[in-house]
């Protein structure tokens, strides 16, 4: 089998079942790197999706096309733990010739892991990076970060453009789908919508993401700030969040 390039990788997106990800590694090679296709890797637009597509879904397709020869398989979260467009992306990628392994997170596999990083005192960017790394390696951190009381909240998914995260203090707690990832419960909408009362929270979504419905509702309910952004963050969005963090 091993005429594959040394930099061959397995792609994944969303939060696939740990069992499915493990089986894919056993099937295609444990030594292969894993690449999160959700994140911005600087790939060119593939032109496969409409302009009005959530940037994260566009990243998945654009990254896959960009990596094409290096991707031996894509492990695709397509259940309630992701979204319809994640499922559609899997359909399209399969028709583009990729090997796609679908994952749907069943309720009996939902975990209840402690929320150590979400509630810690760390730069927000680092918190989200560390939580998302638990999709591949759920082992508890060797040195758990110190917990803190929340002064602010960030609700949502990892953004396409992480610069927005740098506006928040280290005492920002993480809510929403990212918190669900840390808990090992990516399809738990009740947990996703739970925030601490009285904590000024930014409810962030990519534009054209279905989670905008939740963000709008929660921002009204908790007097937070709903922010959506297509592609890169611009100065106006940064200024809006900066003012909210400062004035709240």
């Amino acid at each position: 089998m091993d005429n594959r390039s040394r930099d061959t990788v397995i792609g994944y997106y969303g939060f696939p079942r740990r069992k499915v990800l493990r089986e894919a590694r056993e099937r295609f090679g444990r030594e292969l790197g894993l690449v999160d296709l959700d994140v911005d890797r600087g790939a060119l637009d593939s032109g496969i999706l409409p302009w009005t597509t959530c940037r994260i879904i566009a990243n998945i397709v654009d990254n896959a096309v960009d990596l094409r020869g290096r991707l031996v398989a894509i492990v695709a979260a397509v259940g309630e733990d992701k979204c319809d467009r994640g499922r559609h992306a899997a359909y399209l990628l399969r028709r583009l010739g990729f090997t796609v392994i679908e994952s749907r997170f069943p309720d009996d596999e939902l975990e209840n892991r402690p929320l150590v990083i979400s509630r810690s005192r760390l730069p927000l960017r680092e918190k989200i990076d560390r939580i998302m790394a638990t999709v591949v390696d759920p082992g508890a951190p060797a040195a758990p970060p110190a917990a803190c009381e929340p002064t602010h909240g960030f609700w949502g998914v990892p953004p396409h453009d992480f610069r927005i995260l740098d506006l928040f203090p280290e005492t920002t707690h993480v809510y929403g789908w990212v918190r669900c990832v840390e808990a090992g419960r990516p399809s738990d909408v009740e947990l996703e919508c739970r925030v601490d009362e009285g904590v000024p929270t930014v409810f962030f979504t990519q534009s054209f993401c279905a989670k905008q419905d939740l963000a709008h509702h929660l921002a009204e309910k908790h007097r937070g700030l709903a922010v959506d952004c297509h592609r890169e963050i611009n100065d106006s969005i940064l200024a809006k969040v900066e003012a909210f963090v400062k004035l709240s």
Partner: protein
Amino acid sequence: MSGKGGRVKIADCGSTWTKILDPAAHTLEIITTKELVRRADERFEVATGHCGRGRCRIYRNELVALAEGGLSLVDDDDFSLVDVGGRDIKFVRLKGRKVEKLDWNLACGSTTGATLELLGNYYDIDFSTLPASDRWVNVTCGVFGMERVLEQIAVGTSPEESVAMFLHGLVRNVIDFVGRPAHFYLSGGFCENPCFMRTAERYSRVTPLGRTVLLEGLKKVLE
């Protein structure tokens, strides 16, 4: 950092208009931002606005300047304040003189103020005498709103009525954006637009604060 002539100046450098205050001399200069762009050497001690970054020693966020300006000018404990600019709409609601809610409309719904100014210039509209219209067009954003105005004119509506309908649509956006309060304070150039004020009064009681609210907020930096 001093402005031209060595005097300390503060400025609100909006997308279409720039307001420059010399606090010591109590002089206010209002210029188009295209004029500011031509003044390559113009520098300010404190500035806010999209075009102020890079021209000042201290830069202040627009929403922060708006909130602080409102607190300087308004004595109420609880109030809503909205700034309708050329490019966007900024809003703060204060309760007990603390910010309870803020928002800033961006890409969608934006550039409506600048578009109204363009339409007014193109059709020679005098907003001081333009009657408020009972009808409105949906002003989803400046471009979509302009398309509606052009369509109205194409089907025989007068340019004056069509522009007043655009303005009415813009007012409805503002009212919805600030949460339909019974009363709010208004900041920005629309304070000087009688047709805007007459149209807005159909929905809420409006108190105009003028074009220097953000400058009042900037003054606090000098204190």
